């Protein structure tokens, strides 16, 4: 399944790229996109893992920008 979250807020395009690369490495993630332009995060994964993966993604995002969070 695909799930789109809003991000508050990604403030540079390269950061978005770094976040995306980290999230793609999370186990169970089929695809991930972080868009600086739309301030959105898309995660494609198995529905059952979504909660867990979103938590992991939040951690990965925090590492790039501690002020950025996933709006759930």
């Amino acid at each position, binding site marked *: 399944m695909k799930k789109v979250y809003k991000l508050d807020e990604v403030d540079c395009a390269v950061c978005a790229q770094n976040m995306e690369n980290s999230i793609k490495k999370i186990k169970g993630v089929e695809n991930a996109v972080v868009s600086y332009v*739309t301030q959105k995060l898309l995660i494609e994964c198995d529905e059952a893992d979504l909660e867990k993966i979103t938590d992991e993604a939040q951690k990965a995002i925090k590492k790039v920008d501690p002020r950025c969070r996933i709006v759930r």
Partner: protein
Amino acid sequence: MSRRQKENLYRIIAATVLFVGVVLLPFDGIWKMLLFLVPYFIVGYDVLYGAIRNITNGHVFEEKFLMSLATVGAFIIGEYPEAVFVMLFFQIGELFQNIAVGRSRKSISDLMDIAPEIANVLCDGEFCEVSPEEIKVGDTLLIKPGEKIPVDAYVVKGQSYIDTSAMTGESIPKFVSSYDNVISGCINTTNPIEVVALKEYADSTVMKVLELVEHSAMNKGRYESFITRFARFYTPVVVLLALVVAFVPPIFLGNLTQWVLRALSFLVVSCPCALVISVPLSFFGGIGAASRRGVLVKGSNYLEILAQAKVVVTDKTGTLTTGKLLVTDFENKEATRIASSIERFSNHPVARAVSFATNALYDVQNVCEIPGKGMSATCEGKEVVVGSRSLLEENGIEVTGKGNVFIGIDGSYAGGITVTDFVKENARDTVKALHAMGIEKVVMLTGDSEKGAKAVFKETAIDEMYHSLLPVDKVKKLEEIIGKCTGKVVYIGDGINDAPVLKRADCGIAMGAAGSGAAIEASDIVFMNDDIALLPESIRIARKTLNIVKENIVFSIAVKVLVLILTALGYADMWQAVFADVGVMVIAVLNTLRTLKL
């Protein structure tokens, strides 16, 4: 401006004032350095902190690190004003970029402000406010003037004008009254109406459109992937070059400080921000410009394909023709009136056409629809059948007139009605426009008979046509065309029964999709209304967007390479380097804003 942007603006102002002050103060040596450190830290502390954090997380080559390294290096070799200025200018550029992106995001999301917030649902004889998600099929809803229609529905009470512009791009309000369907996301403007829900919120058009828009920035095209890959090797290469510039020439030429300074300027130019931000922003703007016209693009990759289209393949009914059948002739006025009175109870396109032929005047009873054939009913005490020739013959009535819908009253023939489909007024001009913009071929695929297809073929001046095709044949034919074509093949249809063809094309466009969730899902680009003139218009937008993207790519890379060369040769210093870096970014972003006006 957001809170974060304001905070950054104040820091920039404070640092600028202090910086100018320190430049003017007559201090020297260590004091001068310490004083310069104050504005430096005010404006750059977050960059330094970010750089350290990123290194510990393994993201070494990114802008914060490069800026930190360049400015700290400048401090070490005693170029204090340069260091502060670079940091200051970098932050001004970031702020600008942030505001510009925010603005264009807002202008596009305002455009797509179609999500209904509340709905008034009838429960126990009273209307109560609920959220759109709670609406069930069959619920009666009250839509007041100014409110959005929350789910796809049909009107049961009242009449009003509804503003469909957000959904269809059509600026003229649509008049609706009882039994008219209304699309979710449209705004009721003049009078309150009561409607009955046909779909739940999750299945309604508005939700499909919102989902599509949400996902559109997520489908990256070739250009965006190129930039991502480019950024990944560009920065490390420039850093490596900087190392070479700093330490290799001094071995032969001496003057280490000068070469290190040049190397630091290299670092300042090494940020690929201009590209990383401007390419997706241009596509976003282009997609926004398209959606303002009721053209929804599922991703920047489809905009790329559309820009490269060589062959357009089209469906006939509903695409080149209006698909709205009209009665063009009838034999017996009284019999046609009776037929209209009966046919208004069916949703079949032919029946709808007949029902609009005259004002329905009679009450009818015992209405019965015979699928694929017609209808029967009692009207004014007479037994009436309306439908195909075979239906009348089954009822023992001999058809003696002409038309394609026939009426039998009390067992005898009462008259024929001719129902016609028309070629769209602008179909011919659209085909012309497509040719004018360099589309090599426009091909029509239709399931219709040779006679019907030929008429349309002649009237629209398309290049090729294939008729009497079953859906499977259409896919085969399309594959043939794709195989022969050197460019991209676009298919445009109404999305109702051509989903496989839509999927097979390089870029499938469904038109008139407002109201058809299936069509939205099967296609890559969606025209919310059924205006075929949107096709050349979309191609134009796609091409312009691609041009802006290419301009930005070529311009940014060219300027950066030029500045790198000038710096290495000693013609450009750190001041110019930061101007080049931030300036290129600002110009590229300003250039992308042109897409919003396409």
